[in-house]
């Protein structure tokens, strides 16, 4: 894992964001968090990240809307969707520019593989 990998965690579930942040920090990553797409866009406007781990459905602005706006800005930061819903379309989200669409829950090995692929 690249030391000092910067990861932005976007999810409206505080417990989830917190546990991912602790896991990633334990692996040497630097994390920041946002509770919805709007907040994430604000952070992405001023800071750069190596990876965005993003929920799909969130209040204020959902994941796909956020990604669409991000790519319109010309920001090509890799983004991986983590979705808990069965009906999210992987195909559509990849077309928007998502690197991966993973179904919750993902196991730790998968998270490690994901991080080492960057």
């Amino acid at each position: 894992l690249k030391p000092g990998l910067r990861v932005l965690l976007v999810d409206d579930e505080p417990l989830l964001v917190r546990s991912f942040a602790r896991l990633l920090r334990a692996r040497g990553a630097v994390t920041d968090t946002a509770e919805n797409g709007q907040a994430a866009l604000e952070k992405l406007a001023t800071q750069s990240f190596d990876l965005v781990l993003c929920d799909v459905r969130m209040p204020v602005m959902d994941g796909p809307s956020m990604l669409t706006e991000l790519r319109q800005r010309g920001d090509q930061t890799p983004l991986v969707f983590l979705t808990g819903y069965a009906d999210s379309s992987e195909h559509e989200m990849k077309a928007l520019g998502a690197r991966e669409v993973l179904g919750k829950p993902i196991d730790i090995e998968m998270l490690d593989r994901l991080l080492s692929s960057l």
Partner: protein
Amino acid sequence: MQNTLKSFLDNLSPEALIERLKLALDGSRLGIWDWDLTDNSVQFDQRWCEMLGLDHATTPMTLETWSSRVHPDDLDRCYVDIKAHLAGRTTTYENVHRMRHADGRWISILDRGRISGRNPDGTPVRFTGTHFDVTAIEEARRVLATHDEQLQTLVANLTTGVAMLDLERRYLAASSRWLQLHHLTEAPVTGRPFAEKTPALKARWLEPIERALQGEASHDEETCVQVPGRDARWSRWDVRPWRRVDGTIGGVLISDEDITTAVLQRERAERERNTRLAALALFAGGVAHEINTPLQVILNEAALARSALAEPTLDRIALAESVSAIDVTARRAAAISRALRTLSRDAREDPPSAVTLAPLFDDAMALCRSRFASAGVTLTVENRAGDVLLLGRSSELLHVVLNLLNNAFDAVVNTNHAWIRLEAELKGGTALVRCIDGGRGVAPEHRHKLMTPFFTTKRHGTGIGLSVSRSLAERDGGFLNYRPEAMTSTFELGVPLYQAGPP
């Protein structure tokens, strides 16, 4: 013949003539009376007295002998008929009345007579006639009338429409239910051709009737009957020949049972089942999210705990944090699982029982909170009724509450008034559960159709949620209403309170 008889009688001596007449009267079992209108004395002959069990020798020859034995209910009619004849309005007097026999029973008498003597001025002075015992005939007539009445009553009260036709396809009889089912208002139908003014009837049974006349029966368990301008109804029918005593076919017997209620009930049960399945499918999708997020937290925290345990020095604070997060999220997942178990129970056969309000709200929240929150819809709960016991079935009440919450969600999601409030309060012996949202509510022109099946304003709505919810609510004496007077969209569910012990 008449001439032969006349010449025979003319040639007889008066004594012989009387003797012949007596014989004839004996054979005909006629009793003779001869009433003197001037003094109301009446001569009764031997047979007249025997008919009533009286001894001719001791019987007083007065009108009183007759009138005192006539049934009180029949006497007035006798005098009416007698006066009519004496006044010349009838050519003969004729009356059937009951008389008391000496042994105490009532016998029926056919009484006939005519004026047999007049004054020079034409005033009747004699009135002569005969008595004939018609008890057996009257009894047979009464039995027949009773049977006929019983048959008419039976036919009239049949819950099945029944029509009996002759070989010419004319009505011999029809039950009232038949007339009602086929809107045959011009009674009686007896003698009228079948389906004279009802082409729908003809179309349905023309072939079965022809087959029945050939000796072949037909029937169908469930036929949908569509008559233009009337509600569709369902019928179970049977068309078969009826046979005379000698075994030959006398006509056709049609029975038509209206099973609309049963069919509608079955269809409603199917609809209820389908909505429950649809609600379950909707929640299965939503619940995947509700369960998957806690699972992700649990997996993450378990990995963190494992790492902490692998360190040379144990970070107790980090470990405690992981355990606490696992505990919280596992409880949340358990609540969802419990709510799903409640929702998926098919409670149609369950008797109503005590349902606690607070867990009902908890279940509803478990299934909705996270999904609503993710869509930016704020859901708040205010239970002012406390921990009361409701009368109902928890799965059905949860179903109704979730239906209201989902409707509210659809109404406010992606709007700038995305809030829903679920509240409860007590009013009299009823718990009022209100689902209030920030939306505009139901347009006045749609309100009257709100609870009717298949009415929907949603693009992908089925239009059965509210109608099924209302029928579930009303099952145990509750109600479900839209409150048009409220400031914002308000649906109110009334649930009777559970009364402990015998009422």
